[in-house]
């Protein structure tokens, strides 16, 4: 909804000062989005993926090549620029997708479970890149994750969702404190959601998550 892909059933929201219903195109210019599924095209090279989106986002011709090279270097994909994405490893695909999402220097970057299906090394690299983006470009990073340790380590503010509602929101320290002394983020999650979360979702969601994980793997 915040990425303007789905219309809200009720209520409204503003992203970067624009209304999600009335000004979706203004928002789309200012955000980057990394879906959970694979958003880079496997039939194109890394460079071509970036080139197509550079054109779609309207990067001026004079800056295009330079910006694409910067992003490739930033994501450590310089050597793989002319390789088809279908030959990339899971971690490389994720880095390219983040590169695609930040090509136009968005103010806000949305990521849907960016580290799902990645091995620990790839996971760490992805987080390094995200932290660099946040530090160097001042990009706001908005992401979903099931990894409570990730939320704990990397996020300034965490909202815990349970049955599509925010049940707890605050800094990781605050959330942990309310779950008791010496509580971990996992404890905080259980504290806020109760023990019944396992009954959520359906087979389709499960299948989709595992599918994505195996494709990335």
């Amino acid at each position, binding site marked *: 909804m915040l990425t303007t892909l789905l219309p809200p059933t009720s209520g409204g929201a503003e992203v970067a000062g624009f209304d999600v219903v009335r000004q979706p195109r203004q928002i789309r210019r200012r955000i980057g989005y990394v*879906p959970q599924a694979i958003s880079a095209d496997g039939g194109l090279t890394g460079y071509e993926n970036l080139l197509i989106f550079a054109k779609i986002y309207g990067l001026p011709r004079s800056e295009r090549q330079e910006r694409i090279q910067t992003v490739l270097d930033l994501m450590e994909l310089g050597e793989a620029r002319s390789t088809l994405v279908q030959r990339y490893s899971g971690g490389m695909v994720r880095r390219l997708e983040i590169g695609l999402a930040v090509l136009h220097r968005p103010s806000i970057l949305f990521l849907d479970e960016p580290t799902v299906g990645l091995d620990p090394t790839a996971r760490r690299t992805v987080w390094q890149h995200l932290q660099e983006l946040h530090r160097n470009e001042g990009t706001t990073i908005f992401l979903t994750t099931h990894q409570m340790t990730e939320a704990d380590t990397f996020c300034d503010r965490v909202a815990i969702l349970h049955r599509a509602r925010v049940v707890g929101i605050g800094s990781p320290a605050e959330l942990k404190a309310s779950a008791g002394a010496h509580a971990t983020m996992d404890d905080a999650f259980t504290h806020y959601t109760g023990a019944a979360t396992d009954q959520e979702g359906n087979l389709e969601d499960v299948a989709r998550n595992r599918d994505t994980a195996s494709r990335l793997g």
Partner: protein
Amino acid sequence: MLPETVIPRAAWAEQHPLLEFLRQTVAVAEAELRKLFHDPQELITRSVQPALWLIVFGRVFSRLRDMPTGGIPYLDFIAPGILAQSVLFVSVSYGIALIWERDLGILHKFLSSPASRSALVLGKTLSAALRTLPHAAVVYGLAVLLGVRVRANPGMVLQVIAFTSLGAMLFCALSLIVACLLRTRQRFMGINQLLLMPLFFASNALYPLKMMNGWLQRISGFNPLTYLVDALRAAMVRGGQSTYGLSFDLTILSLIVLLLVAIATKIYPRLIY
């Protein structure tokens, strides 16, 4: 918060909306063509079918002497029909490719970009138009080899390209609409088979409409493929005649393209709900 407080940080030159629209349309088409360039195998496999129709079906049926082809050999009569079939078959594959892109997440990426929905749809149809060109060349080549008296002057070839492009855009948009309505690959493949054969057989591609009985003739009159074949027949082969007139064919095909692109644009974002 004032909208002015957050501006896009890439130093973009403000562009005219129309230029922006065209640039995005071309970018979408470019992505499709670059993919084809990386994996041209499809171009070859898709050339087999028209070859079989011309070489096997066409030559066998040429022996039937009482087909009312308007005074041209039967092979000359069906060559434009096979070209139209080629356009149809290539273009309807865009729907299943779209569902595939949705399943992967590529469609989400495009829809979260500032590209207008109509540019996304039009870009696909534009690439379909370009994609049919090599197939047209193959059918032309085969036709010449088989002794079909092809009109080779540039004006006529341009007319053929104009009509195959229009036909490709039409069937590509139709296929995108079907994909948006059916949403899954399985359902799409089922309906696709169900649609393709009637579209092909209830048309003038293989035989003149006047050979059909009344109700089938009326159905064929609503089939866009009929108008595509009609125009190609006059433009592609010597002695080939158009029943409806080229300007009528052009008008009706253009109107259907506009209508289908408009519908596809409207329902495109709903594919990911």
